[in-house]
């Protein structure tokens, strides 16, 4: 009973503390929203820019043979290498200068004697020269060229095979050369028309049928998480050692203060979180079953608790304020990554995927997706509940060990 009385005392005290910061609080709560807005703006801008302005790629032909000429004009005319790519023939000097002026993402260099070597079975290197200011795009182009090279090299094997067999037919060299040039053409076109193998279909899923809702949910999850860290951080005020000593005399343990802080942050972020998600549901027009409101609330409750317990454990273990802050930021980033809100979990290595399902953020986000995006009317709370309870027990254990060590 005494325990609870003290917890209540500190809880009220924390509320009073928070009320004193009423002016800076809205600013702090606004910050993650602004940050998410900035990120969304940049990403949207990135993609729309990519569509408006295709990547400029230079083609430099040092060989100047009929065959390379053909390759270059083919590449120039078609957009076979990708929709976002625009290729232009130029000299090596021009290409270098354009890269220096940041007008070119990369250029592809066909070396001297390219054709002759190819026919004679000598090795040839096609070089991609990237723009150091645009590493991501350069990588993209390198991939495209690699895939083209794979096709050309299998075509080359076929041409060499044809060469091998035609030599055994009694043909004059002119005819044979003609046949070779014709087949080179043939296989080049064949390589470039590779995509006809596939009948490509686009399906809709959560993201494509309602990208706004998909990303809205992820953004909401991010904002809630940052709010929790922020409010928790505001409430953590160092008390001097003399005050700490006085507290001990009154029988106050660190755990009571931790729990009080936890309760205040929890209540506030729960309130804000539910408001936030209802706002997201209304603004982005989610098709949301009203039966799901209590499930949503429960999920936010459990996620909040889980995350706060994690922060509380760090508070208990690490003494240095700065280091604690760093570790908490780091764990926040890990929590967000592991939730799958940023990168869907299927792209993680299997050994990580195996553990993800034990993580509260993954469990919470997964079920949020289920009820909000897939319209399910069921949530399995048990795993999340188990994680939260074990988190609480862990905090109890750590605090009691710490208390014992200190006394």
């Amino acid at each position, binding site marked *: 009973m005494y325990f609870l009385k003290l917890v209540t005392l500190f809880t009220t005290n924390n509320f009073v503390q928070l009320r004193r910061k009423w002016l800076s609080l809205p600013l702090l709560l606004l910050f993650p929203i602004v940050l998410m807005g900035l990120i969304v703006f940049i990403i949207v801008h990135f993609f729309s820019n990519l569509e408006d302005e295709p990547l400029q790629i230079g083609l430099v032909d040092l060989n100047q043979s009929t065959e390379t000429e053909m390759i270059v004009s083919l590449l120039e005319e078609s957009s076979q290498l990708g929709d976002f790519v625009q290729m232009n023939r130029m000299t090596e000097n021009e290409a270098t200068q354009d890269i220096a002026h940041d007008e070119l993402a990369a250029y592809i260099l066909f070396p001297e004697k390219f054709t002759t070597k190819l026919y004679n079975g000598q090795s040839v290197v096609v070089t991609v020269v990237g723009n150091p200011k645009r590493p991501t795009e350069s990588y993209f182009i390198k991939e495209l060229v690699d895939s083209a090279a794979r096709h050309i090299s299998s075509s080359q094997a076929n041409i060499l095979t044809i060469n091998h067999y035609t030599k055994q037919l009694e043909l004059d060299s002119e005819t044979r050369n003609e046949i070779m040039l014709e087949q080179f053409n043939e296989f080049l076109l064949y390589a470039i028309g590779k995509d006809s*193998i596939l009948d490509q279909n686009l399906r809709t899923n959560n993201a494509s049928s309602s990208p706004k809702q998909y990303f809205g949910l992820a953004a909401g999850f991010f904002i809630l998480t940052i709010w929790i860290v922020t409010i928790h951080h505001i409430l953590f005020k160092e008390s001097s050692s003399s005050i700490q000593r006085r507290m001990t005399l009154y029988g106050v343990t660190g755990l009571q203060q931790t729990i009080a802080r936890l309760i205040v942050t929890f209540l506030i972020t729960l309130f804000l979180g539910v408001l936030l998600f209802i706002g997201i549901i209304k603004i982005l027009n989610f098709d949301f079953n009203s039966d799901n409101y209590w499930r949503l609330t429960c999920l936010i409750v459990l996620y909040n608790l889980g995350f706060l317990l994690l922060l509380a454990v760090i508070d208990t273990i690490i003494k240095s304020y700065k280091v604690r802050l760093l570790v908490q930021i780091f764990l926040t980033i890990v929590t967000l990554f592991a939730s799958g809100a940023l990168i869907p979990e299927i792209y993680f290595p299997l050994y990580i995927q195996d553990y993800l399902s034990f993580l509260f953020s993954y469990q919470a986000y997964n079920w949020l997706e289920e009820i909000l995006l897939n319209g399910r009317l069921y949530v399995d709370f048990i795993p999340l509940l188990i994680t939260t309870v074990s988190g609480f027990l862990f905090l109890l254990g750590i605090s009691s060990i710490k208390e014992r060590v200190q006394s």
Partner: protein
Amino acid sequence: MTNILYTRLLLWKKKWLSMLIWLVLPIVGTYFIITITDSLQEDSKVPIGLVIEEQTDIALQLLNSIQESELVRVIKTTEEDALYRLEKHELDSVYIIHEGFEEAILNGKRNKLLSSYRTDLSFAYSPVKEMIVSLVQEDTGRSKAAHYIIQLNEHYQGENSWTWEDISEKSIEIQQDENLLYTAFHYNDSAESPTETSLISWNTWGLWAILSVISTLFLSDWIIREKALAVSTRFSFIKPSHFTYFAFTICIYMALFFLFDIASLTIFSIVLQEKVTIYFLVSLLSFRIMLTLLAFSLAHSFKSSGMYYGMAIVITLIAATISGVVLPVNGFMLKGPWTEIINPLDAFLNERMTVLWLLISMILVLLILTRKERSNA
């Protein structure tokens, strides 16, 4: 100067461990982020669904080759299940090998042998598609060549009895013996090719710059701490003026930071093969001076270190966002002279000397110090 250095060293001695942690944070942090994402990327496989409608040799062979690829993790299933899982985004994309696949290959046909399904979320669709297409293309191309040779033989009435199988084998042999077309990649400004290009390729110095922002801000908290201590009264009765004392102390911190910057440079050039040029060294130095001065100006305007740390984190997050270190904004969004005006990190990230913000930071510090001097007089 030596006297001020001596007093600073006395204070540093007592907290060298915590200082060291913050000083090496940019180096260690950058290294770990790069190596961890690299190894995660290497270990990640894209889950794809594969549906085989016929159990022929060529079809199974294709399945084998796909399964052997490092890029994907193949889940063999039915079309219905595959598409369901694709919609739930448990699979990145789905490929269906249609009935009549072998026959089409043998006949040298290739149109629509496979169907693919993807969604807007299929981030890995493009490379996976390319890989599968190139595998199928090898088969169809070979078949095409074989048909052509047999045709040629008939056309010129050669007496050879070449079969489809013989020619295919020969083609495979040639391809294996003489894989002759290579591609090379390097950046315009260096002859060396990067050891490995990958999709998430961190900008090493960009990452380092962001971590340096937070470490410099956190290490500049001495200004707030020492201002709050009772000992600050004593600084009115010292021989150096306030201006000299603070200017020198900032320089000492700058030198310490730069020492660790040089260490970062050395380590990155050895471990991560980053190149070092004199110009880069100069731009690093200008960046460091600017960062130290800005951190001082910021810390100076705070009374409570808790608020200051919070602000430091907010600033770091914003810097990370708008600098394009985490997001792919390079070369797309933030272009033009105004980016340099709003983002102090911009010049350094574009491998230029920091000039504008260096001037701004110097003016700020000069204003603060002269005001301090006057209020003290």
